[in-house]
């Protein structure tokens, strides 16, 4: 199983502006002061080895969309703005006249998780088959997509789409066999409800758990979360806020914190904890600092095996 992140930002897409890029260039030039590069390879080596991630790269700004590779068909979770780039990638790879099957698993239907669909080119091409699965009812799912592609929000209406599109409500807490994977849903605390997914194949387990406020104020609920995460190889987790923000001014906003993620993943003996759904107000330096702090917290509270921790970025790939 391989995971590819097409969008990792929470709530709304963001983009680096000219000032941000200028600051990155300035920092890189200062680091290179006095150096001479004799070849392109030396430049690449300097970038790879001497410049930190927030300067040489960045976390990206597309909203939630991840691809799970390892089945016969395309398979993704959520349709944030990152879906546009995924659609372009498919068209580039196969050309427009090569029908494919797509399986989408929706955490929920808030705008930042469906906004990529009107820009998903394969949806306009007859012959493509699109399955949209979720824990919400078919009526609720259809309504969200139809309203997004109707006047005055968007000029191309839902009924003008060329692909064959099917909606399916999946039952919670039972296994579903789709595209060669075993998939289970679990309801999460979020406005209007959201669903986490446990996806398994060939002895590997991924949990996609975004837009979830884990208050940990109910032992039974916490035990259910721990069971859902148990021994997962990778948990993609809504780490949008600091703990202080999450339980003060942003309480009931529907999101979790970086250190709640550490505590849950350690208790569930998860191997790799990946922070996701980044606060749009955070820049690359903020997210990098939070990653370092989160790793330090894990080091302090860890009592058994270490937990690998990463921060998702657009185009990141994780092999399980």
């Amino acid at each position, binding site marked *: 199983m391989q995971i590819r992140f097409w969008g990792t930002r929470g709530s709304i897409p963001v983009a680096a502006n000219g000032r941000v890029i200028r600051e990155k260039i300035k920092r890189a030039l200062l680091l290179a002061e006095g150096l001479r590069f004799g070849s392109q390879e030396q430049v690449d080596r300097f970038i790879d080895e001497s410049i930190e991630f927030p300067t040489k790269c960045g976390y990206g700004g597309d909203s939630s969309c991840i691809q799970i590779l390892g089945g016969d068909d395309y398979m993704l979770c959520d349709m944030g703005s990152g879906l546009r780039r995924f659609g372009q990638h498919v068209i580039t790879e196969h050309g427009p006249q090569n029908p494919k099957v797509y399986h989408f698993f929706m955490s929920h239907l808030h705008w930042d998780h469906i906004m990529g669909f009107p820009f998903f080119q394969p949806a306009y091409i007859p012959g493509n088959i699109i399955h949209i699965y979720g824990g919400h009812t078919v009526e609720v799912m259809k309504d969200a997509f139809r309203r997004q592609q109707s006047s005055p929000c968007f000029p191309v209406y839902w009924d003008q789409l060329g692909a064959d599109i099917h909606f399916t409500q999946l039952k919670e807490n039972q296994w579903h066999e789709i595209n060669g994977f075993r998939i289970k849903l679990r309801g999460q605390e979020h406005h209007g409800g959201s669903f986490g997914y446990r996806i398994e194949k060939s002895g590997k387990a991924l949990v996609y758990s975004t837009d979830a406020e884990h*208050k*940990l*104020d109910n032992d039974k609920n*916490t035990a259910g979360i721990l069971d859902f995460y148990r021994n997962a190889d990778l948990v993609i987790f809504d780490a949008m806020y*600091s*703990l*202080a*923000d999450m*339980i*003060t001014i942003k309480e009931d906003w529907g999101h979790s*914190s970086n*250190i*709640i993620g*550490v*505590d849950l993943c350690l*208790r569930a003996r998860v191997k790799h904890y990946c922070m996701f759904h980044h606060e749009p107000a955070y820049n690359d330096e903020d997210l990098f600092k939070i990653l370092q*702090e*989160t790793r*330090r*917290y894990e080091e*302090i*509270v860890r009592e058994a095996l270490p937990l690998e921790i990463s921060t998702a970025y657009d185009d990141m790939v994780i092999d399980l």
Partner: protein
Amino acid sequence: MQFTSQKISNVTLIRIQGRIDHNTSKDFENALKPHLDECISGMNKKIIVDLNGVDFMTSAGLRALMIAAKTCDKQKAEIAVAALQPIIQEIFTISRFDLVLKIFPTVKSAFENLSVDAVGDYGNNLSS
């Protein structure tokens, strides 16, 4: 986890010792509860939590502290934490609790901030 409490002038000083994690956070909440109930009834408006004896705390403990702080805030009462071990101070910084809670380097400095009247009694208490 062990805890003791004593009333010093108009301040309740709660001393906590041990680990505060998901296994013990309920005990921590229970240790704080009677004093928070006094805040609600108006009998007590100032609490200092001495964390000098705490060497381990996870988000479960932080959450219990924040619930206490919110309860105090609603009752226009004051709560402060004091004498954090460096490792606990680090956890407060990582969780950004250092931005939302009153934190003092020593219990004495917490008394000086919360109740000038109680500082003398706290000093007497130390020497007795």
